[in-house]
């Protein structure tokens, strides 16, 4: 089980001014599995993702992807590693002067040599999958928050990535839509076998999708467990988290 960690964070520390956000994060992301990172708002979940993406350099500690330490390798090598990534940012980060269609088509146009008809087919397929077809000609500013998220997801998945990073993919979506998105995730993951890292506040629903759940609390990852182990964990912090998010019904000892 130890040999197929595709991403490894070792003792990552990061401060902004006097605020120490990450105080020694250790995390292993297993190949082909879904790891969900949960934790309170402002704890540094998005920051962890940015470390793995190589957008932020840690103050100390090492971030390894495919066994390569991100801040030690050349620009070229980093770019090669990133060809495997599909990323949804928390704010979607759509290109706001391009239409929805061009946004989703961009990775295909810049990274592959396929024809425009083929591009069109793939883009429409992905937009349909995310249930935002018919918005092709709109600009991101003309979309609702939830639609932006789904366009961002379509863009992240358009090149069939090997690792996907979704920062709060269903925040701002209604229950039916987020269920639909989760179905799409498990379907595409089965088909493509990608590794996924998901940041989410949607507990307990997200547990159905997760192979591992990691709780970030006070700058460290308390533990990375399977959803079942997580819900039954003895760790007081995890227990507390499970109780506040899922209610006491879920933890057996709390039953009166």
């Amino acid at each position, binding site marked *: 089980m130890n040999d197929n960690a595709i991403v490894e964070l070792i003792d990552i520390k990061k401060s902004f001014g006097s605020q120490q956000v990450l105080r020694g994060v250790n995390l292993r992301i297993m190949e082909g599995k879904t790891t969900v990172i949960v934790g309170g708002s402002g704890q540094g979940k998005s920051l962890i993702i*940015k470390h793995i*993406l190589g*957008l932020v350099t840690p103050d100390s500690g090492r971030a390894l992807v495919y066994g390569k330490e991100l801040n030690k390798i050349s620009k070229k090598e980093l*770019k*090669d590693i*990133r*060809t495997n*990534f599909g*990323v949804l*940012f928390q*704010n979607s*980060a*759509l*290109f*706001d*002067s391009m239409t929805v269609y061009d946004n989703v088509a*961009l*990775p295909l146009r*810049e*990274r592959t040599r396929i024809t425009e008809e083929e591009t069109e087919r793939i883009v429409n397929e992905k937009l349909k999958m995310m249930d935002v077809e018919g918005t092709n000609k709109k600009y991101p500013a003309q979309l609702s928050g939830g639609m932006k998220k789904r366009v961002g997801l379509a863009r992240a998945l358009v*090149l069939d990535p090997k690792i996907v990073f979704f920062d709060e993919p269903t925040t701002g979506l209604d229950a039916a839509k987020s269920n639909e998105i989760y179905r799409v995730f498990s379907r595409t993951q089965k088909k493509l076998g990608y590794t996924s890292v998901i940041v989410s506040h949607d507990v307990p629903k997200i547990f159905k999708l997760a192979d591992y759940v990691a709780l970030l609390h006070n700058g460290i990852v308390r533990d990375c467990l399977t959803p079942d182990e997580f819900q039954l964990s003895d760790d007081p912090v995890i227990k507390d988290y499970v109780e506040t998010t899922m209610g006491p019904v879920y933890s057996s000892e709390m039953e009166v």
Partner: protein
Amino acid sequence: MLNYFEKLGADTLYHLNQTGRMGIFLFYSLLSIIRPPYKIFPIIKQTYVIGALSIFVIIFTGAFSGMVLGLQGYHTLSKFGAEGLLGSAVALSLIRELGPVLAALMVTGRAGSAICAEIGIMRISEQVDALECMAIDPHKYIIAPKFIAGIISLPLLTAIFDVTGIMGGYLVGVGMLGGNAGTYFSSMYKDVEFSDIYMGLVKSLCFGVLIIWICASKGYYVHLNRGGGFGAEGVSSATTNAVVLSSVSILLFDYFLTSVLL
């Protein structure tokens, strides 16, 4: 007292850091220009935005610069009875100095500020990060077409500026003040040499690179700027900085280029 030195040290480091960053920025941008793949459409689009859309402003300012040169030149030269040299005086000052410098200043105001703001907004809304994570090089995708467009546009705009300026000088010096039309152009023909045109061309090329370099890098590094505020305010102060720095550099650089090329 110690505080003062501390601040001085921090300031020095900050500015060194910033200069180094801009150097690296230029290096990567120029490198990404020569690296394949070469896409023509973004270059055409940027040339349209930076060059074609500036033509009107350039014609307007060029005409009035030439007209005022004609006016001033005629009155000054007529004191020495040398009105016949008006044509070459207007043409030489435009081709060697005013054309490249004023065209560059106009492009800075019109296109440079827009470039800085556009890239700055892409940076603060994480669009640059998104590009990087898609393994698309932002230098290649956003910056390189702008550099090429700047290098293409500036010499052409300068040429337009020169020509409209010479026409403006003719309008005032000959049309309004009654100078001789034949001598206006024949003195020009006699005195303007290839080296003058070469000087104007080199200057405009250098200014083209300078404008895009300063404006694009100020926008690209807007998130690292100190004390300029964040978000919209950060972008606006970066844009102001970019325009001021670019304008000042154009004038400084003009002096050095002139002293080297003369």
